[in-house]
């Protein structure tokens, strides 16, 4: 951003130097760095700091320096003028002349004005609330006051048993004070917890030394002759000593200035979905706003608002703010608590509850219409982000409700040393196996660089930036580090950074708006880069191919190298070659041809794969067409071991030889492979057929598994091995061989039409629900037959051997030969 121009005419003035305002500025600099000359007015005499980390500062776990997001140098580097301090508070705005004036007389004109005035702590107007020693818990000054009091004083009273109050009480306790928490109802954190979990929290906090007075009605704060607080009394006649009173009973949007200049306000400043106020030149974000009746107190929604607001300040005009679902965690070290959504019960909802008083574990998941509506977890919050994700995605949980409370059951996870909770892992545990990123690297980066979102962490550390299978673990680490400000609340994830639109948005538009090329899609959605990026190009190429079979011309330049060169690239830039072996069967002649080819091209490694085939590793790119030609001549074709496509159909020997076999699994496997080979799919697809329930082909951890029983075949779907092992769900049982073929073809097509690019069948099924797949495939014969027919239709155009096309028919030959050889 150092390249920002010096002479920009348009002026943006930001009132408020907090997290929402500065995040908006950061987002704006990203999308339109040279749009505005920017001036920021802030009433606190600092740069921009991470307000949500004030609790750890109070406990002494962090310092102020550590929670600075942007120091003054950042403002200079980005050529932003910062006016910070009490005297720089804006007191006058002339909307007609478009000028703002600060307390000290500084006057400035603006083209666009951004309100990010935040909120004020609510101070209960009790008698005595103006005494010295009665404070809020809101900013650095409050924290300083508390730390000073803790040095010399003994008795602290915190009014408010919510999230902030408890964090303040915990901090003061850590600083050596005797602390009593006053709460007006008898349920702590009653906006996040139900009664049983709140009682467990209360017991645990009492054990640490906090005192409570619940369901208490305060009457008066008492002081001495110097006007300093001494005690607090209650309606029930009780009176307790107090040298410090912290009010943490909620916040109120700071709208005084907005009201004064006649901007329409209710509880907050009214904004529309573009974050614009009733004055079209004035925008507002953060805790000061009211959007569709909601006001905001946690940071995650503010960041989404910032992104939308920046988009409109940049005059792109394509983003809309939709309220976000928010999850909460309490930042008190050693207490595990997670709450999200609406966990109150009513006649339409059902509670599933697990409670183990002795271990201090409580879990409640509230379900309505088979979807998670809210959750409260205490003592074991490991699955919080899983429930939260399903809640945001609206996942149908009817099929898993008997197992729901036992968690995501990572029992089969590999690569995490068998530990199930990421919080229990040591710092040197590798989280991202692809890029070798350890837990400590991630947690340190989150703290040191003030990262908030998954994208931030990916950029900074590369964790989960490759295959993405550790995304859940990384999200948990972010959630643990940020506590109540668990971000990434986007309910619809965008396909990549070229656009805010999701996979589903794009697929729908391709079908409904007749979009038939990448440029048509990128133009329709106004991509920030006309030829997209390495994430969206392959995805959209697949969607176009799946939507318009026989019509859309596959774009090899939008394919990852493996699919472009029909071989797997290896770390030394050589390739691996795997010929297809139908159902895992081969012949002496094929084996001889493979052996000859391996010798002829000096293949350094020959290996039997897990999919019952032979892998020739270490082939040079220019040799690929030649080795393919030799293999083609022996009757073999590409095994597609490199693609998001049908990989293998693994079989056991079945009734042909096996004394336990009940059906001919080898023939069935070959028939299925002959039908499905060559098809492109959202992610790789592996199929297996076992000849009896002993299941030697391991069919129940494949994308589609077929298991013979005496009376027919069982069909399973949605399994995989890999990092997160998932066992298939049972779909149905059929009696005839033809049915197996029809169901398999229908499943392939349904997945091809509905799976997101790079989403294997396991997450696809978890997203749409097994119930839905049963409805479409098992219960609806017409639908099943239609899926199967569409699959066969698209297969007409995909069963040309890509090796033969390149080895003998002149397709993409230039890819395999140098442009020129010099010297």
């Amino acid at each position, binding site marked *: 951003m150092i390249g920002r121009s010096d002479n920009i005419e348009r002026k943006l003035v930001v009132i408020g130097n907090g997290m929402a305002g500065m995040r908006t500025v950061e987002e704006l600099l990203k999308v339109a760095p040279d749009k505005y000359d920017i001036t920021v007015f802030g009433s606190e005499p600092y740069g921009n700091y991470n307000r949500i980390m004030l609790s750890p500062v109070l406990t002494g776990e962090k310092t102020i320096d550590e929670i600075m997001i942007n120091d003054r140098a950042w403002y200079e580097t980005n050529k932003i003028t910062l006016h910070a301090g009490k005297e720089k508070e804006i007191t006058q705005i002339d909307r007609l002349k478009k000028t703002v004036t600060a307390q000290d007389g500084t006057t400035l004109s603006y083209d666009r004005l951004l309100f990010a005035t935040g909120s004020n702590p609510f101070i209960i107007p009790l008698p005595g609330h103006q005494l010295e020693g009665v404070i809020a818990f809101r900013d650095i000054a409050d924290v300083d006051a508390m730390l000073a009091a803790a040095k010399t004083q003994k008795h602290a009273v915190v009014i408010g048993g919510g999230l902030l109050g408890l964090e303040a009480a915990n901090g003061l306790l850590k600083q050596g004070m005797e602390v009593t928490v006053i709460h007006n109802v008898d349920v702590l954190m009653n906006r996040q917890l139900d009664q049983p979990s709140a009682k467990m929290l209360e017991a645990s906090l009492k054990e640490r030394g906090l005192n409570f007075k619940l369901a208490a009605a305060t009457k008066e704060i008492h002081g001495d002759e110097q006007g300093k607080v001494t005690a607090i009394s209650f309606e029930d006649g009780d009176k307790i000593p107090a040298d410090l009173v912290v009010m943490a009973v909620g916040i109120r949007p700071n709208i005084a200035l907005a009201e004064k200049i006649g901007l329409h306000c209710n509880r907050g400043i009214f904004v529309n979905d573009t974050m614009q106020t009733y004055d079209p030149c004035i925008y507002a974000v953060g805790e000061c706003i009211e959007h569709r009746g909601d006001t905001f107190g946690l940071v995650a929604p503010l960041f989404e608002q910032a992104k939308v607001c920046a988009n409109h300040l940049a005059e792109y005009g394509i983003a809309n703010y939709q309220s976000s679902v928010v999850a909460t965690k309490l930042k008190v070290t050693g207490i595990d608590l997670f709450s999200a959504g609406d966990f109150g019960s009513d006649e339409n909802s059902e509670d599933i509850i697990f409670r183990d008083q002795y271990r201090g574990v409580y879990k409640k998941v509230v379900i309505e219409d088979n979807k998670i509506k809210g959750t409260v977890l205490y003592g074991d919050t490991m699955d919080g982000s899983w429930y939260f994700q399903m809640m945001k995605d609206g996942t149908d949980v009817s099929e898993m409700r008997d197992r729901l409370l036992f968690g995501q059951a990572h029992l089969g996870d590999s690569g995490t040393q068998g530990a199930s909770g990421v919080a229990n892992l040591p710092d040197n545990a590798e989280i991202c196996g692809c890029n070798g990123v350890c837990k400590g690297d991630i947690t340190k980066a989150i703290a040191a660089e003030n990262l908030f979102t998954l994208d931030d962490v990916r950029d900074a550390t590369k964790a989960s930036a490759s295959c993405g299978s550790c995304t859940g673990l990384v999200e948990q680490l972010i959630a643990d580090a940020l506590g109540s400000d668990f971000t990434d609340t986007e309910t619809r994830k965008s396909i990549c950074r070229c656009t805010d639109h999701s996979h589903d948005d794009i697929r729908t538009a391709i079908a409904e708006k007749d979009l038939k090329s990448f440029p048509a899609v990128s133009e329709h959605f106004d991509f920030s880069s006309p030829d997209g*990026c390495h994430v969206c190009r392959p995805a959209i190429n697949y969607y176009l191919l799946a939507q318009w079979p026989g019509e859309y011309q596959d774009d090899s330049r939008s394919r990852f190298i493996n699919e472009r060169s029909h071989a797997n690239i290896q770390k030394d830039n050589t390739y691996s070659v795997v010929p297809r072996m139908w159902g895992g069967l081969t012949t002496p002649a094929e084996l001889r041809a493979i052996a000859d080819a391996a010798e002829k091209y000096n293949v350094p490694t020959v290996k039997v794969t897990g999919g019952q085939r032979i892998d020739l590793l270490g082939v040079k790119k220019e040799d690929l067409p030649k080795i393919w030609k030799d293999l083609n001549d022996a009757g073999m074709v590409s095994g597609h071991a490199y693609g998001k496509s049908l990989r293998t159909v693994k079989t056991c020997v079945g009734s042909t030889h096996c004394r336990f076999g009940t059906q001919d699994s080898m023939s069935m496997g070959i028939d299925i492979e002959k039908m499905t080979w060559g098809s492109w799919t959202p992610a790789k697809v592996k199929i297996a057929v076992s000849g009896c329930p002993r299941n030697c082909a391991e069919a129940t951890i494949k994308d589609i598994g077929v298991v013979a029983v005496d009376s027919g075949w069982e069909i399973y779907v949605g399994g995989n091995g890999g990092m997160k092992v998932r066992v298939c769900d049972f779909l149905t049982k059929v009696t005839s061989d033809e049915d197996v073929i029809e169901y398999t073809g229908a499943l392939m097509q349904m997945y091809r039409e509905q799976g997101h690019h790079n989403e294997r069948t396991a997450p696809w099924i978890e997203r749409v629900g097994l119930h839905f797949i049963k409805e479409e495939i098992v219960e609806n014969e017409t639908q099943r037959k239609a899926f199967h027919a569409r699959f066969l239709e698209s297969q007409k155009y995909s069963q040309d051997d890509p090796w033969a096309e390149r080895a003998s028919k002149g397709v993409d030959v230039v890819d395999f030969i140098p442009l020129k050889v010099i010297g």
Partner: protein
Amino acid sequence: MSDWIEIGKLNDIPPLGSRIVQTQDGDIAIFRTATDEVFALRDQCPHKQGALSQGIVHGKRVTCPLHNWVISLEDGEAQGRDTGCTKTFQIKLDGETILLAQNA
């Protein structure tokens, strides 16, 4: 001053594609963008030596096929938070002819 050697025609490289020029000092990747600009980089990612010529080209950038580092075609610099640089070579178009600077 450098000598310019003819290495081929623009249409020898598909749009958003890449071909290599083999030299005694290793391969040079020649890129063609959507707008028919050409660029030349050492065919090695600064990260783990992935062949950039095999990556996906977008804008004036290429994504390495091995670990998705994004490299600028203009100056060879890794983008985003990654740091590293790949050597660039002078290249130009004379009509349809691509010319590469020798001993650049």
